[in-house]
């Protein structure tokens, strides 16, 4: 995989700090699964956190908590065997988990407009974001649009081009919310992306805003 477009350093720091919303966490973890360069950057960002935390003052822990913890060791279930290594397959591990092993072709995609289908992914109630897969037909030109909110997109298959270059499998578009672009999907195959956005109550996701006049989502 030849990855050209990477995550913003600010996103990597937020990921390392564990403060990204679940939807964004899945997209970032998925990119890191495929991109050793960003995975190394995320590891480094976590070192900053470790260093800060190391400077925290100590709060005394009660003897009761200490002896309770030591008393539980015999009954604690050990995780002695490493998880199976990532299959290196069609999908990143974090996404595979959410799809419960289904392939992209097996999903019941919802057609939203000619050339555009979406599939919503489940998130916990604690999430304030939205996570979905988007499939755009070969050769489709999306209208020029801005995003009006936080959004990160990972390309899973196919490719599109916009004024920032070519985005193909493994590339991530971690764009500033003020940026406008007009992606055009390449002719030979559909482009499938994993997209995290802020919740629709806080802003309208751009496919929704684009298509609202047509289909009213």
């Amino acid at each position, binding site marked *: 995989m030849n990855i050209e477009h990477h995550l*913003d*350093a*600010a996103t*990597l*720091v*937020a990921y*390392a*700090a*564990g*403060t*990204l*919303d679940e939807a964004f*966490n899945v997209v970032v*973890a998925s990119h890191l699964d495929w991109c050793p360069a960003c995975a190394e*950057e995320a*590891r*480094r*960002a*976590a*070192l*900053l*956190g*470790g*260093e*800060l*935390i*190391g*400077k*925290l*003052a*100590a*709060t*005394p*822990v*009660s003897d009761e*908590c*200490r002896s*309770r*913890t*030591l008393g*539980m*060791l015999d009954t*604690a*279930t*050990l*995780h*002695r065997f*490493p*998880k199976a*290594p990532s299959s290196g397959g069609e999908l990143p591990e*974090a996404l595979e*988990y*959410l799809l419960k092993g289904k392939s992209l072709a097996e999903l019941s995609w919802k057609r939203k407009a000619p050339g555009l289908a979406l599939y919503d992914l489940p*998130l*916990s*109630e*604690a999430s304030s974001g939205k996570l979905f897969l988007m499939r755009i037909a070969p050769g489709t030109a999306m209208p020029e649009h801005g995003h009006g909110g*936080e959004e990160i997109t990972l390309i899973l298959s196919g490719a599109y081009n916009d004024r920032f270059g070519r985005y193909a499998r493994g590339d991530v578009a971690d764009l*500033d*919310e003020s940026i406008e672009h007009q992606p055009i999907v390449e002719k030979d195959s559909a482009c499938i992306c994993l997209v995290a956005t802020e919740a629709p109550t806080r802003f309208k996701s751009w496919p929704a805003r684009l298509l609202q006049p047509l289909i009213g989502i």
Partner: protein
Amino acid sequence: MTAVLAMSWNMLPKDNPADPKTEDLAAQRLVQRVARNLDREAFAELFDAFAPRVKTFIIRKGASPDLAEDLVQETMINVWTKAGYYDPAKGSVLTWIFTIARNLRIDRIRRESSRPVSELGDFDPPSEAPAGEEILARKDEARSVARALSKIPPEQMEILTLSFIEDLPQAEIARRLNLPLGTVKSRMRLAYGHLRKNLEQPA
């Protein structure tokens, strides 16, 4: 204060126990003893070394002392059961333990929803044991991180503290400091830039 601490670290002789990296090597050996031999004494030493800071970390997020001790216990039990996953090549023992503490806090929230807790963000399976050369490189790395942190200006440090210690998302930091989101992000990028520069030009 930060700068003074970091400077004194760099000036310490290599085997001084207060050297953060020597401390980490000692902690790594304890984790190894737990992983290989289920060594309870080693675990008790880890508990005494890390549990008090874990407790501070959890209390900083507004947990009551009782809940904090519950989470301290849960975190340290995870250290016992997952010791075999710890990989020194990925970061210090401290970073690993706080990753566990942070994930448990996130899981607490998720447990209230119906979806099973995902393994996201957990440490990856261990790779091969690091060679001596790599351990040395990591030792330099820890010093570079301390040096980078000492050079980060206060307005960037504030953002890092709110992220890593208070666990606030970028948008929340922006609201709290009354700054545009773009400013919060650019300060994060600059702070990370200091780290990158120090890692790439070790003194």
